[in-house]
């Protein structure tokens, strides 16, 4: 939504200049938030950039300046590329699937069916459930012998895998939970968007003889494009930073099958006490998310302006 608003703002509102006399009062009004953000966001973030040039374990009185060595070490390490690959697979899997399911559920729950509100709440519940609790419960569901999933599969004659202990299945299991947690949010945002599409479009299309599929394809989907854009950006940013789910469900394992960037960073920063190297990981993560966001703004500009 942010992106959409910004695009509108730049073209719809006339640019107003500011006189120098406005700066003083503006600064005073901004001071509280500058102080808070500065202390708790900007200073630590910049300090972390500074730390990424050092080798430091957080306790040693001496920090060794190593320049860009932490970054070089990162690029040269197989662990980093593995973490990047796992993160991309997770991000793509969760973002795309949750998007498709989200729009599907939203369209269905936009119909006048009985118990609509109930179903909407049901789909939204995972979003507001704490991730740690979610992870713990799914861990039980995925248990190879006692878990509901494998018992269910056993009921139809399939021997389910040892989900979270099998390197081939663990990431898929975590992605599944990621999707489950994301669909409800996508649904709510899509529902809002669907309800803002004027009924007249559909009526006109119906009179012209458009089938329900054609109506969906040529009216609904294009008008949902800005929403989709917003959801893709936020979902990708979310997915790139996934940590808690992995921490609770698999601790990055088995082997390195679910070692997403967030967990990789955590391992080095908080378990191996390599604060410099972990800061370098954080900045590479930041750069990646930044690039992805910029690319999306570029590619989606057309889509973002359809509804104007």
């Amino acid at each position, binding site marked *: 939504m942010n992106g959409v608003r910004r695009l509108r703002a730049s073209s719809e509102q006339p640019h107003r200049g500011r006189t120098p006399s406005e700066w003083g009062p503006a600064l005073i009004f901004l001071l509280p938030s500058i102080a808070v953000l500065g202390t708790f966001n900007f200073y630590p973030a910049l300090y972390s950039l500074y730390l990424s040039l050092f080798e430091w*374990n*957080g*306790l*040693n*009185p001496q920090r060794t300046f190593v320049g860009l060595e932490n970054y070089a070490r990162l690029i040269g390490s197989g662990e980093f590329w593995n973490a990047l690959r796992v993160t991309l697979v997770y991000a793509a899997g969760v973002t795309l699937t949750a998007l498709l399911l989200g729009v599907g559920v939203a369209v269905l729950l936009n119909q006048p069916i009985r118990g609509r509100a109930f179903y909407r709440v049901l789909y939204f519940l995972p979003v507001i459930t704490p991730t740690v609790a979610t992870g713990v419960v799914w*861990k039980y569901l995925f*248990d*190879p*012998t*006692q878990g509901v999933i494998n018992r269910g599969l056993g009921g139809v004659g399939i021997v389910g895998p*040892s989900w*979270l*202990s*099998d*390197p081939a299945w663990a990431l898929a299991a975590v992605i599944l939970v990621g999707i489950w947690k994301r669909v409800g949010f996508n649904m709510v945002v899509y529902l809002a968007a669907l309800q803002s599409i004027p009924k007249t479009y559909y009526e006109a299309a119906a009179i012209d003889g458009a089938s329900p599929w054609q109506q969906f394809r040529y009216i609904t989907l294009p008008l949902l494009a800005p929403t989709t854009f917003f959801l893709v950006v936020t979902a990708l940013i979310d997915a790139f930073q996934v940590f808690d789910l992995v921490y609770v469900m698999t*601790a*990055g*394992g*088995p*082997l*390195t099958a679910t070692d997403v960037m967030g967990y990789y960073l955590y*391992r080095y920063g*908080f*378990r*191996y*006490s*390599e604060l410099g190297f972990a800061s370098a990981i954080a900045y590479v993560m930041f750069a990646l998310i930044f690039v992805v966001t910029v690319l999306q703004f570029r590619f989606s500009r057309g889509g973002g302006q359809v509804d104007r």
Partner: protein
Amino acid sequence: MKGTWFKAVVFALVMLLGLGVAQKLTFWHYWDGANGQALQALIERYQKDNPGVSIEAVFVPGSELLTKLQTAITARQTPTMAISDLVAMPLLTRSGALAPLDDYIRQGTLNLADYFAGPLVYGVFQGRRYSLPVSASNLGLFWNKNLFRQAGLDPNRPPRNWDELLSFARQIKERTGKWGIELFTQGGEGTTWQTQVYFWGAGAEFLNANNTAPAFNSAQGVRALQFLVDLVQKEKVATVAPWGLFGRGEAAMVMDGSWMTQFFPQQVNFELGAAAFPFAPGGRAATNMGGEQVFIFQSSEAATVRAAWNFIQWFSSTPVQVEWNRNTGFLPVRRSVASDPAYRAWVGNARPLMRPFVDSMAVARPRPPVTRYPQISDIFARYVQEALLGRLSPQDALNRAAQEITPLLR
């Protein structure tokens, strides 16, 4: 004349106040529940016997204590004393923030020779001692007597070596369909510290004598890992699955910690046995060990450090440690506690499953006290998993682990 008198009175008052006002000490720890209460009770008694001292015990969740200590050291806002899991001691001793204890120990009443060798390995840096062990735990064998009976085994006879362990496990799998033994296969330190027991039991070492290079990829090490891989891949008496099979009665034996002598009896619905963990034929008895160490932060005020030391010395004395271990279920760090008649009587009556764990303290070995141990442990565990899953041979897995770990020990 009057002025001098006045000065003298003021001076005397100040002196009295200095003595009278309590020496305030803060003590950061992560002992919760009954353990925290046991600590508080001891502190209160100490304060009553030593009116000049007041100790404020501050509870910090275990997962946060090291981070909090890091912040405190960086900000120079340290407490008077604190505890830490022994694995973090190498980092802490190198921080330059801890007070060396050697002089206090030399002048004091504490006999270090009475301590078990394992816990004392921690807390030493460049020949100086910065911390003392105050609690311990270790690993042993638990078995399910009901499953042993069902399999036609003597329910009161645990396996004494790996050959028996394997033959018992086979018989259990054959007769009951349950797993013979549960292994911790989920990686991380959980996998490493259990696997180390098998390695030591086969006569292998984890690192070389001065902790500068891996030693686990020796012939004995390969033998130990091969034994574990065979349990899973060849004999199929163990499996790669989430932890918890033993507690649910799906595996007949497990390696678990001394603390479980308290928790298993409340959790399981079968009859339990506990014993020292069996070792390889021709190997040696060995177990792994956890626990906490206590240390004092450097302070410009010598009296504060001295007061903290006095408390630690009292806390570490045999009678107080007997009481401490009885109230917490921690294993003794001192031989005089482990052999204390009152303590042994308590174990026999209240915690009979714990006796083999107490006796194993004599063969409990420390994980190597190196700063990068957490990372080394993760790498080692990952290659153990590779071998257990049959993706690498034990020899290859251990060689590759050694290759990755070597640069971390430089």
